[in-house]
């Protein structure tokens, strides 16, 4: 039941939706011919009904949180209340021109200002930028801020950023984009950063240490306090990757832990569904010392009026306009709706669900780490290697059981990792059922490993030939040529 592509369905001359406009024939002749395209783009021609059926059917071929339990570790695939979907539909925000004179956008600027304040209070930071379009973009912002900070202190020796080997791949990539060299800090046997490795790695070249809290094993570093003290005494900045903020918002504030720069992913934590890849947003909070370097433009309040300004010290603009405002307004809405204690509850129950599921899966597969976990935990399917199975084979069987799959092969420090994050919005019943099914699947992996290699069987297609896809990539529909 695969759906033909738009180009397969296209029939030349079909009229689609009637757009305002005019016949191009009458207009085009007035532009010099060498400035015009030689033929119309090969875009599909379909009726509105055909387009509606096409995308409705495509939607049926995709799983989301709205249809399935989605325990994709590190992605916080929780339920985002539908009321938040209505905020970006309010004409006063949706149809507002970003180059509007400031007199005409007072409501927007006020909302963004409240959003900044609310995020600052949740992070425990002094100032927040709303500019970054995603978590990784926030990392880049933080890294460029660090660069500016050391430049402002005329400290030109700090060219290195330290990153634990368990970190998200974006951390090193962002550091590289910011012109820093990356030095990897090894994990200890418990999955936490090894204190000695950190001590060894720190030097007068260290500009910043980037840490994920809780780390990608779903663990709070046992020696966090010592680590922070070490970094401080080395004169470096401390960056927190807040992708896992759903584990502790309203409970613990990164600022109170001693971090200088913190980003969070509002699309994970604050009510923007992931949309198949985005949009998201990645606000960054900083200490007072670093505030002057935040990206431009900044929202300024003066005498009860708001305006945008580009402060002198700023690293400059990170993207077009103020920020992904329609995403940020959702985050603001979520904070407003849940309030202080509601947000705290979110994290408490995210912890509860993760620990409950962890306990249910005790003894099914070995877990990396010990004791309580935070909002997620990592199992290793390494024992199945004997049978020629990988974590990804387990994941495919999980798809067949009626779930989305956990994250596989990450973090890299755990062989055949299966990273499970249930989030606070799933019920006990769902967790019980998932645990039962997961147990059955692992028994099956031991008993009849071959069966897993054929999974999934109940999905619209079976396993794609990924090697073939990468060998000679077909990235556009050949029928469009």
């Amino acid at each position: 039941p695969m759906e033909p592509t738009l180009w397969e369905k296209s029939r030349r001359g079909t009229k689609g939706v009637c757009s305002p406009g005019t016949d191009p024939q009458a207009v085009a002749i007035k532009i010099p011919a060498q400035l015009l395209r030689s033929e119309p783009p090969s875009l599909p021609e379909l009726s509105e009904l055909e387009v509606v059926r096409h995308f409705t059917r495509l939607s049926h071929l995709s799983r989301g949180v709205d249809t399935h339990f989605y325990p994709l570790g590190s992605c916080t695939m929780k339920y985002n209340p539908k009321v938040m979907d209505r905020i970006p539909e309010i004409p006063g925000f949706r149809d507002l021109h970003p180059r509007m004179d400031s007199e005409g956008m007072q409501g927007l600027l006020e909302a963004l200002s409240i959003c900044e304040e609310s995020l600052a209070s949740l992070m425990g930071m002094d100032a927040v930028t709303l500019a970054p379009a995603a978590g990784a973009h926030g990392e880049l912002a933080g890294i460029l801020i660090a660069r500016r900070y050391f430049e402002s202190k005329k400290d030109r020796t700090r060219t290195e950023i330290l990153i634990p080997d368990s970190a998200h791949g974006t951390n090193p990539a962002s550091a590289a984009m910011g012109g820093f060299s990356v030095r990897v800090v090894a994990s200890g046997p418990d999955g936490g950063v090894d204190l000695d490795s950190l001590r060894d790695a720190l030097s007068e070249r260290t500009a910043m240490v980037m840490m994920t809290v809780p780390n990608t094993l779903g663990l709070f570093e046992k020696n966090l306090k010592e680590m922070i003290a070490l970094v401080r005494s080395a004169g470096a900045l401390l960056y927190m990757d807040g992708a896992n903020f759903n584990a502790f918002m309203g409970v613990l504030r990164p600022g109170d832990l001693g971090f200088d720069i913190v980003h969070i992913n509002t699309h994970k934590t604050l009510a923007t569904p992931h949309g198949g890849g985005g949009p998201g947003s990645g606000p960054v909070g900083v200490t007072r010392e670093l505030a002057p370097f935040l990206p431009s433009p900044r929202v300024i309040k003066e005498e009860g009026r708001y305006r945008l300004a580009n402060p002198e010290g700023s690293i400059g603009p990170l993207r077009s306009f103020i920020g992904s405002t329609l995403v940020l307004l959702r985050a603001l809405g979520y904070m407003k709706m849940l309030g202080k204690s509601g947000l705290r509850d979110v994290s408490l129950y995210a912890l509860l669900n993760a620990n409950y599921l962890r306990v249910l899966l005790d003894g099914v597969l070995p877990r990396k780490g010990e004791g309580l976990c935070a909002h997620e935990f990592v199992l290793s399917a390494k024992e199945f290697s004997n049978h020629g199975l990988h974590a990804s084979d387990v994941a495919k069987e999980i798809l067949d059981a009626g779930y989305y799959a956990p994250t596989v092969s990450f973090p890299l420090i755990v062989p055949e990792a299966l990273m499970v994050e249930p989030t606070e919005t799933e019920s006990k019943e769902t967790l019980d059922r998932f645990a039962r099914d997961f147990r059955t699947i692992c028994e099956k992996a031991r008993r009849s490993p071959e069966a897993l290699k054929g999974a999934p069987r109940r999905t619209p297609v079976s396993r794609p030939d990924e090697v073939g896809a990468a060998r000679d990539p077909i990235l556009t529909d050949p029928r469009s040529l």
Partner: protein
Amino acid sequence: MASFIPHTPEETGEMLTRIGLKSIEDLLLQFPATNPRPGAPDLSLLGEGMDERALLRWFAGLAEKNKDASRAVVFRGAGSYDHFIPSATGALVSRGEFLTSYTPYQPEASQGLLQAIFEFQTAISRLYGMDLSNASLYDGATALAEAVLVAIRETGRSRILLSEGLDPMIREVVHTYLEGLSIKIDLLPLGQGGQSTPESLKERVDESLACFVGAIPTFFGTIDDFNGVADLLHGVGALFLLHANPHALALLRTPGEWGADIATGEGQSLGLPLSSGGPYLGLMTARKKYVRRIPGRLAGLTKDSEGRPCFVLTLQAREQHIRREKANSNICSNETLLGIAALVNMALLGPGGLARAAAGSWKNAHELEKRLTALPGVRNLFPDAPFFHEFVLEMTPSAKRMSQFLLERGILGGLPLEPILGSSWSGRSLWCATEVRTEEEISQAVDLVREFLRQH
């Protein structure tokens, strides 16, 4: 208070018992100790929560203070355009299966999403006349910055040349992105006529150059002529980049036809709302040979184990989650959902509808320009350059004052250029008219400008 937690108190109790804890607060035992940070804003700022209805009313109150397009007719562009959006788009893109899915790491459970991305890549590639497109980047500005990084990496050179025709805001974003990388950024000025000249380009092109970036159309609305540019650049081993408005490409010569290596653009003009500036949709297209250089997700066509055609994310070895600091970019989240919206729009309008819309923009802008420049003391700054749907108007009174005057009367007029380009631009503003402007609206705008001129 709302928190969307499904647990009954009994269930919470059972779960805690199973974990071996007495109270849910015991879960916090794993947390590190902290010292409250002095001076940071208090958590109580967050308030006690509110219900849906109160929340929506609160937002409605804020929205009232904004002059959105229903309260100020938009004659302003400069990177954000008021275009027609078919109603079917919202109904389709808001479907939960798309909205609440993640990046499709498990292709078997995400064929619909992958196919939509593949179709998006196809549509954008054909619109730009290029071989391939990625699944989107944050916005036009960051897409261009990423493209410049590709050119720098590809050539190993550390000088780039940007056309003055690029939106100054976008040039600044490129500056920000290159902040840490010791890259020299040169500017190719537009000539007096509002187009770049072959001579001034030649002066600046040599074997130190990683790339030149031109704009279609320019920030000032003019249509530049890139005849011979590709050969000139390729002759010295530099890359030719073009940043193009996809709405205009329904009619204008494409980056592919100009011989560009990489082309980027802002997808907002494919029918995304003005959105107060974001989220927008970064487009990146390229020649096939750069396929392993470009950043971001790529969906590819392949076959499943039974030989059926299917889709999959491919070439992930370029990406940060595998290559880490050696990755093409740090990009992870992108703007997939907006890409699907743009795809749905393109499919609904078809090539004919897109061309019709673009021609409507052209026509309305030219009508507006004709009538505004007929006013005494008003001229087009680049009267001889062909333009698409924007143009710079020059007059004696302050453009900022005019903008205020018009806004108070329900018109978002031309963008004052002085705050962006300096005091010599005080009487200049950048006007735009798209296909959705009506004759009455154009007349109203012209009448109000006349009235303003009479008073000032």
